[in-house]
């Protein structure tokens, strides 16, 4: 049977067999649909890349206020655009390793305080200039400038000094950080000529495509940059990002063939969509998680018994089942899951337990006044529904949870990080240190659970500089347990990234870093002839 399957796979690779035919024949051989589907995908992916055509990408999160300035990109469409036109020093590979891009190699000093990035030769910007270490330095300076509006500013704060030395870009840190390359793989840190100081939004980068038409909130058209250095990317002659914010419009556009790939398929319809002809739904579990967050310094949430009551009252399986429709995994009241390096899987999973919830609620001595949970549709997909489920299961434990729906408009400025109990999401970070530094350091701006403990801060910093992997893993495990038992985070679920691509697309690979192959599917995939 294996021979026959190999034969079938060979025909797929040669492009002589469609998915439907393949699945039919594989089923005849007694292979389950899931296995056959995977076989088909790997066989189809093994096909030779094809050059040419216009790759059309339908993405959400676009707005007519968007710019091409990498510093302020924060939602899907602008991130896709800067990834299309720009190139970073390094990237994180789907397996979590550092993938060199503009930096040809990365080396750290023994104490992990000094890092040297060797700049690749012969990489050219769209304006014809060559990429130098000086450009890299200027780019980092722009993002690290306290006057900048860069979303990467916080990541670069630990840098003591930077310099360009010939072909080398050298970073000195004030304290050891074994994860520096991961920080510099941030999507904002696209290398621009002279750092983009003059006109950051002009769209000139060193990426595979250059800007052809830029209509924010509508579409962005890019054409292949003739002198691009990397042959393994940029197969299509042109890439068009079409802004499709409405989920139903997005799936309809894919089904009617107006775009080749879309992101953020609603979990509810993913299985139904996958049944449609000529397209595939692709999901990959990542580090993003949907959360309910309590301020641990504000009453009544400063009482750990009440926090525990709420943590036991939530039904995680039901949420994964009903909100994610199985496209995700259950959370464990800490921001880390198995997708992170150095994850400790021995931390016990907290389950829904009405009796325990009631017991902790009783112990908390709460006066029985309504506990208000603020939520908006935009907090995460299905947030209002998830809150309704939470309310039902809390009611069963006698906890008076009350939902207050807030407008999407202004949610991130008026509610999140302001109100003591609300829904939110985290897209996750490539390494544990970054996640803890961003959300659990006393001084962090995004400490959205108001988790302020000097001992915990010390643990974060100690773990960051620890180069012994086993010790480091143990430190992260302890931190995870503390947040799990005492933190203000109720994390019911980690969501999968769910994309959908047309049959015509070749070269798609799952990447847990971000949706759409780390936002780069448009430059990494090709259109089959």
């Amino acid at each position, binding site marked *: 049977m294996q021979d026959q399957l190999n034969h079938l796979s060979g025909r797929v690779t040669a492009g002589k067999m469609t998915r439907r035919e393949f699945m039919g024949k594989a089923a005849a051989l007694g292979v389950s649909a899931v296995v056959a589907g995977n076989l088909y995908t790997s066989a189809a992916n093994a096909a030779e890349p094809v050059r040419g055509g216009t790759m059309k990408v*339908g993405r959400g999160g676009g*707005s*007519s*206020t*968007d*710019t091409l300035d990498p510093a*302020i990109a*924060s*939602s899907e469409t602008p991130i896709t655009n800067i990834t299309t036109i720009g190139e970073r020093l390094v990237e994180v590979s789907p397996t979590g390793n550092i993938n060199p891009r503009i930096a040809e190699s990365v080396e750290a000093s023994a104490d992990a305080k000094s890092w040297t990035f060797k700049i690749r030769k012969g990489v050219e910007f769209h304006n014809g200039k060559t990429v130098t270490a000086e450009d890299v330095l200027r780019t980092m300076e722009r993002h690290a400038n*306290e*006057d*900048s*509006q*860069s*979303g990467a*500013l*916080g990541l670069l704060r630990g840098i003591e000094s930077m310099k360009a030395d010939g072909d080398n870009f050298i970073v000195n840190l004030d304290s050891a950080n074994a994860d520096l390359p991961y920080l510099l793989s941030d999507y904002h840190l696209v290398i621009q000529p002279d750092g983009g100081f003059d006109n950051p*939004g002009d769209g000139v980068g060193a990426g595979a495509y250059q800007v052809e*038409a830029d*209509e*924010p*909130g*509508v*579409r962005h058209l890019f054409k292949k940059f003739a002198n691009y250095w990397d042959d393994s990317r940029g197969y299509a002659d042109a890439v068009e990002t*079409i*802004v*499709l*914010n*409405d989920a*139903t*419009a997005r799936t*309809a*556009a894919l*089904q*009617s063939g*107006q*775009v080749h790939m879309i992101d953020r398929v609603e979990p509810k319809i993913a299985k139904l969509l996958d049944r449609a002809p000529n397209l595939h739904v692709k999901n990959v579990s990542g580090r993003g998680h949907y959360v309910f967050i309590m301020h641990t310094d504000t009453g009544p949430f400063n009482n750990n018994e009440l926090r525990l009551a709420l943590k036991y009252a939530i039904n995680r399986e039901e949420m994964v089942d009903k909100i994610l429709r199985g496209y995700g995994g259950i959370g464990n009241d800490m921001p880390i899951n198995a997708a992170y390096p150095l994850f400790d899987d021995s931390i016990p999973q907290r389950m829904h337990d009405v009796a325990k919830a009631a017991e902790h609620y009783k112990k908390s001595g709460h006066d029985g006044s309504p506990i208000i949970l603020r939520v908006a549709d935009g907090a995460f997909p299905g947030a209002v529904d998830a809150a309704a489920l939470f309310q039902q299961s809390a009611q069963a434990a006698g906890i008076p949870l009350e939902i207050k729906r807030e407008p*999407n*408009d*202004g949610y*991130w*400025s*008026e509610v*999140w990080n302001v109100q003591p109990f609300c829904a*939110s999401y985290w897209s996750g970070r490539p390494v544990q240190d970054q996640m803890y530094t961003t959300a659990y350091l006393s001084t962090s*701006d*995004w400490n959205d659970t108001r988790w302020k403990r000097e001992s915990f801060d010390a643990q974060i910093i100690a773990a960051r500089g620890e180069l012994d992997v086993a010790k480091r893993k143990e430190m992260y495990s302890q931190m995870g347990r503390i947040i799990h038992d005492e933190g203000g985070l109720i994390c019911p679920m980690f969501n999968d990234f769910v994309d959908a691509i047309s049959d015509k697309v070749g070269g798609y690979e799952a990447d847990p870093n971000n949706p759409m192959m780390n936002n780069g599917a448009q430059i990494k995939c090709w259109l089959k002839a």
Partner: protein
Amino acid sequence: MHPVLTLVAQRFALGLLLLFAASALIFAGTMILPGDVAQSILGQSATPEALENLRRELGLNEPPLQRYFSWLFNAMQGDLGTALTNGRDIADSLSTRLGNTLFLAFWAAVVSVPLAIFLGLLAVRYKDRWPDKLISAVTLASISIPEFLIGYVLMYFVSVRLGWFPSVAMVNSSMSLFERLNAIALPIAVLTLVVLAHMMRMTRAAILNVMQSAYIETAELKGLSSFKVIYRHALPNAIAPIVNVVMLNMAYLVVGVVVVEVVFVYPGMGQYLVDHVSKRDVPVVQACGLIFAAVYICLNMIADIVSILANPRLRHPK
């Protein structure tokens, strides 16, 4: 001067005055919008340093009154300023969007207004018989379904299943008129269904109201055919309420089609405005508001003037 001309001129001057009042109202409205421009631009991932820097750069710390007057002065010279969020020239971006909106509104009106009046006349002609009831039921059903639902249903059947028209109504400058019309076929269909019932029902009611008059009886006694009576005698006298409701719906087609724009991803003004409202991009919101107000005031003025001209008693006062 003829008294009607005076009335028209008065109406005109009032329109201008109104526009100024509207600009002040829009300004005040944008001031009380909750939320913070800088936070909205930078999103959830913003740090306080970045926020403060952006705020300073955008001039958000200046007094509002000063900003209002300088903006108004520039607007009168056709300079709407630059968007806070992406630094683009507002007049530039807006003119394409406005063009698209007017294009869609125009074609939707071309289809829906004559159709509504025709159906209204038909309903009066066959009053209480099956054509009247059928028209009534169908238009009512079409108006009562949320427009996004009509949009999705049409999108699914017409574009996904049948593949007749595209589901995404993208238009750009390189497209021919025919291509554009093809692209906006579904939005036009939805908008027509949405505005048809209101105009048709008002036409029917207004004409029925006039049909009670003695002169209609005279006309009927003269032996004119019933359609001719309706068309020649009843319609002109029912014109005021009809024009009123037509103008209301025209205004809706220009200012109220956000949902249709979202569903079909049409690059019109509604979507542009909503994007900028949610980012608190005050100059853009004000510019859009001003244009919407101008469109509205203009259409209302036309309705009033038509009403004045159509009313013989106002035309020839005692």
